[in-house]
């Protein structure tokens, strides 16, 4: 095992291979507060990539309702149970993870600590996760607010981790991370279907295809990314919760890069289970209505500050932050740079060419009930 630096943990850690960062690292920010769980992302991915034989239950993109939804079943709980105390030292300048990662907890004979879901664990995506746990008797009503009167939608794709568990687990080197964009791929010509990657990915985002006998995963729509276009699940997102781009390590953070700005400068977007140790590259703006005692375990110690910044952005007239969030979903092109000019937010490509601009505030348009042009009274549907 080599020693590598994981900035999300604030420390070095052990990893199967030495540190070698991609020259650009694919990354994304998902604003959980805007997700409506319409599953358009899931379908966009499914129809594009996983409509074949053996991919029936494979969802490279899925949306689950937390805390009771999982795909596959209990994917996070199983590993959280296996992992030690997951303690963070928050006394210093920045939090340092004092627990063990999946690499540091690898039992004898294993490359990482992991587990393999069985077919039944994949069989019921989203079924029952928003339902009442029991029957409601006639005349029953709720007198008080339930302690857990919250839930949120967690949209998930492969995190194209800086230190992928899948890649470390493969004894054949069939998984590789592209040096040019950090996208993690399974070489379909080399994979022999040992399912070690399925076992080793804590996010359970590699899937075994029983009809090809190989493991398959999210490819970050690399043919689109190579053309400067965001992946399918991003451009089809109805809630406009997603922005794809590239992230720099914190010491090289560039505020003109929208991902860097949200992750490193504003610190409103946080990694998913950073304590696993993979330096995952999909960052989440945590749900602001959920007790942070819950979200802290999922997104790390930055949750309180992130929620505060996001909540107060409008009141504090943080036009940069609120404006940048308006850029999400405004173009299918990759916006590697951004800037605000007055009340306009501009998305630019890597060369600095403008792609799109959005207003800081959408103008309010009032439509009179009586349409003079057509001499008709229009009413809004209830």
């Amino acid at each position, binding site marked *: 095992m080599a020693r590598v630096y994981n900035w999300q943990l604030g420390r070095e850690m052990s990893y199967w291979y030495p540190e070698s960062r991609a020259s650009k690292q694919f990354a994304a920010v998902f604003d959980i507060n805007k997700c409506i769980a319409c599953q358009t992302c899931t379908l966009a991915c499914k129809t594009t990539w996983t409509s074949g*034989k053996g991919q029936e239950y494979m969802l490279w993109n899925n949306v689950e309702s937390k805390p009771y939804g999982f795909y596959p079943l209990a994917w996070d709980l199983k590993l959280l149970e296996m992992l030690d105390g997951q303690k963070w030292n928050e006394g210093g300048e920045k939090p340092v993870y004092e627990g063990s990662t999946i690499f540091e907890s690898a039992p004898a004979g294993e490359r990482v600590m992991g587990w393999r879901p*069985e077919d039944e664990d994949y069989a019921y995506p989203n079924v029952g996760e928003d339902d009442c746990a029991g029957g409601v008797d006639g005349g029953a009503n709720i007198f008080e607010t339930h302690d857990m009167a919250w839930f949120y939608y967690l949209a998930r794709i492969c995190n194209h981790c800086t230190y992928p568990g899948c890649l470390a687990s493969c004894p054949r080197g069939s998984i590789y991370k592209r040096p040019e964009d950090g996208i993690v791929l399974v070489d379909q010509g080399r994979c022999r279907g040992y399912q070690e990657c399925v076992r080793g990915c804590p996010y359970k985002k590699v899937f075994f*295809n029983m009809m090809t*006998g190989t493991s398959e995963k999210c490819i970050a729509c690399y043919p689109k990314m190579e053309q400067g276009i965001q992946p399918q699940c991003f451009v089809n997102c109805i809630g406009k919760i997603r922005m794809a781009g590239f992230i720099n390590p914190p010491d090289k953070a560039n505020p003109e890069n929208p991902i860097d700005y949200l992750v490193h400068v504003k610190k409103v977007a946080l990694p998913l289970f950073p304590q696993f140790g993979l330096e995952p590259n999909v960052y989440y703006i945590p749900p602001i209505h959920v007790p942070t005692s819950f979200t802290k375990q999922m997104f790390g110690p930055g949750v309180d500050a992130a929620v505060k910044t996001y909540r107060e952005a409008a009141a504090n007239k943080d036009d940069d932050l609120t404006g940048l969030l308006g850029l999400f979903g405004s173009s299918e092109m990759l916006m590697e740079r951004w800037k605000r000019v007055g009340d306009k937010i501009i998305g630019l490509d890597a060369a600095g060419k403008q792609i799109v601009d959005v207003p800081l505030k959408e103008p309010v348009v009032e439509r009179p009930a009586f349409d003079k042009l057509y001499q008709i009274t229009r009413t809004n549907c209830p």
Partner: protein
Amino acid sequence: MKSTLLIALIAVMIGAGPACRRAIVSTPDVQVVSGQTITLDANASVWNPVPVHLSKQIQQDLVEPRLMEASTQEVQIQAISDGNLIAFRIEWLDDTQDDLPGPARFMDGVAVQLPAKIDPNVPAPQMGETGKSVEISYWRADWQAVVDGRADDITSIYPNAKPDHYPFNAKPLENNPDAQAQAAQRYSPARALGNGREGPRTEPVEDLIAEGPGTLAPGPNAFSKGKGVRTRTGWAVVITRPLPAGFSKESPSQIAFAVWQGSHDETGARKMRSGWVNLLMK
């Protein structure tokens, strides 16, 4: 009356089938009986007089992931040759038949490994080493099931599955098998690359070469054939391939065996393997 019948039945069962041989006298080497007619039938009488080598299996514990808990202790090996081909009959105990692929499901299998070149300086027994490659013939239970007629369809694995639609079943492609095949391939990149881990195949055996752990690759020749059948206590598999280059009475070689029990989550490096044993032509 009933008990007499039962005893008679047991007697018949003991008398039949390769799994219930008399106590085995193991030869220290694998002795290839020459001048025989090659067969893929594990129950053929040609095997009856052929000496048995009991290959002691040990856990693969050199590279991660290792097999931490032992399973198959020994494998019975017999070998015959007709002067061109060599056939191995391999039998081992395995009380579950694991041939249905799926998540967290692994396949029963067995492999025969030979040094690519006969040389006193033999390659490392664990998959060879750089510059000293090994040739491997690998049989797998799921491939056998496919060769024996299992359909290349999800319902052959999950009989109650009802996929609503596949793009290759789209109406406009209905009368165009080529377009259908192309559409199917688009969603099966491994098949498009010729990496037939599952799906239609004509042989349950695969030819491989390796120069050390993690380097396993398709061999230059697809010359191995095989057939595996369930015995009452496990598997009996016959694997045939050409005689190793330069192998003769005067010039013996080495051989090693590996076996995987699917029900024990054995796959890839998680296997029971042997060291080199002498392979002698008799």
